[in-house]
């Protein structure tokens, strides 16, 4: 899923203080599972804003609406009536949400309430870990199904580097060395010898570095 967390209230308020009528839009998919941007969290943020704005003597209204997914036109289009008459839409989706809302409702100002962090797994309750950076050329069959591009601090294709000690990465004792995990995983298949083959260099042209990407399904007319 996409993991995103809410910006600090102080930062959100710097933007919202400039506007009167505000619509907070929740998203009920990834960020709802993250417990950061779903319907409940949208209502919480709206309540916080109302209280702060009453104390600060700012007029206007703060309303909420939540859609299933802010990354699809039909859901974003469905809030047209809610957006009507608002000065600011505050999106609680990953940062795709505010961009699509701005595109589909060009008359209104839009701001993100979230910081989009990563493509993640739920490691355990309330802990998400980055597993993929959408590099566009997945090579994890060679690394035991474990991604060194997203999970090695230096995106090495020939790790573990000289900083790997005791199973953790040189950057922090809190961060596992993913190349140690890759080594151990391959060893379970008796394949650690595969790591004597040189990996890379990576073709970054398939990643975001190659320019913004679009994807079309062949045989279908857009």
């Amino acid at each position, binding site marked *: 899923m996409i993991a995103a967390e809410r910006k600090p209230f102080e930062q959100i308020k710097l933007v919202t203080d400039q506007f009167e009528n505000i619509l907070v839009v929740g998203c009920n998919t990834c960020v709802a599972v993250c417990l950061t941007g779903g319907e409940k969290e949208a209502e919480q943020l709206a309540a916080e804003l109302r209280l702060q704005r009453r104390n600060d003597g700012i007029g206007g209204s703060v309303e909420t609406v939540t859609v299933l997914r802010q990354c699809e036109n039909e859901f974003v289009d469905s809030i047209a009536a809610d957006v009507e008459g608002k000065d600011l839409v505050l999106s609680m989706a990953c940062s795709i949400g505010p961009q699509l809302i701005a595109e589909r409702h060009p008359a209104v100002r839009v701001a993100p309430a979230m910081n989009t962090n990563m493509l993640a797994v739920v490691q355990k309750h309330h802990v998400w870990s980055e597993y993929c950076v959408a590099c566009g050329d997945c090579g994890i069959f060679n690394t035991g199904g474990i991604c060194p591009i997203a999970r090695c601090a230096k*995106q090495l294709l020939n790790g573990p580097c000289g900083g790997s000690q005791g*199973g953790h990465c040189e950057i922090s004792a809190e961060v596992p060395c993913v190349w140690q995990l890759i*080594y151990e995983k391959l060893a379970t298949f008796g394949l650690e010898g595969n790591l004597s083959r040189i990996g890379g260099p990576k073709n970054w042209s398939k990643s975001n570095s190659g320019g913004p990407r679009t994807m079309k399904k062949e045989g279908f007319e857009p």
Partner: protein
Amino acid sequence: MRSGSILEKVLADGKFAVTAELGPPKGADPQVIIDKANILKGHVDAVNITDNQTAIARMCSMAAAKIAIDQGLEPIMQMTCRDRNRLAMQADILGAAALGIKNLLCLTGDHQSFGNHPEALGVFDLDSITLIKMVKDMRDVPQFQCGEEITFAPKLLIGAAANPYADPFPFRAVRLAKKVEAGIDFCQTQIIYNLEKFEEFMRQCVELGVTERCKILAGVAPLKSAGMAKYMKNRVAGMDVPDEVVERMAAAEDAQSEGIDVCVEVINRVRDIEGVAGVHIMAVEWESAVPEILSRAGLRAGSGS
């Protein structure tokens, strides 16, 4: 000859090579390098010119290497993958060769979070091993990484680092063998204090045939104080400082002299290990210790004898 460097000749002649380290300044003053070069000149075969070491911004290794050449000291220019992509690296490699630099040490580089610009983007387009392969292809094919021909090849002796103390231990010699496969001519190891582990690492290197194709220089360093020994033991990634070394430093009356003695003892031990072709002395910001270490070890630069 691949590069025509002094280091290449010393190693090819089977002489015991001696290299040291020269860190460029955090400023634009060439005199800092001139002064350090004059301390080291005549004592060592070549000096490593570090490249934004530990991710701290400094004068670039190419310029500092050129200043060392002008002082009559042969540089080993270090290049990390952290700060530049393959385009910039190839440009720098050609430029370095054009300036008369003949040795290049290829490193991945410490993560930017260690340094004074932790907010910087880490590039890591290549890693040390794909960098080595690129340099070898530039020199020997000769071609750019993309496969296009190079009309005037950069003649460089290619080096790398190796850390016997990183994990998993059984993979460390294998990883050095990968660097040999990619194209290195020599390597310098992490600073050695734990000799038993280093001996085992060297045995594995001999077994894998690494020592036949690559000259291994054992990394050594003089400790300045017990505090430094403790810091290295506990805080520096990839180090292995045994307790007895820390205790010895703590008990010493003259810590600096003791540190030099420990270093000399390590040098004397590694000289007897099969496959060790030289030493690399890392006396960072203590260049003046190098002549003293060499004289106590009875060593002269291979080129000097």
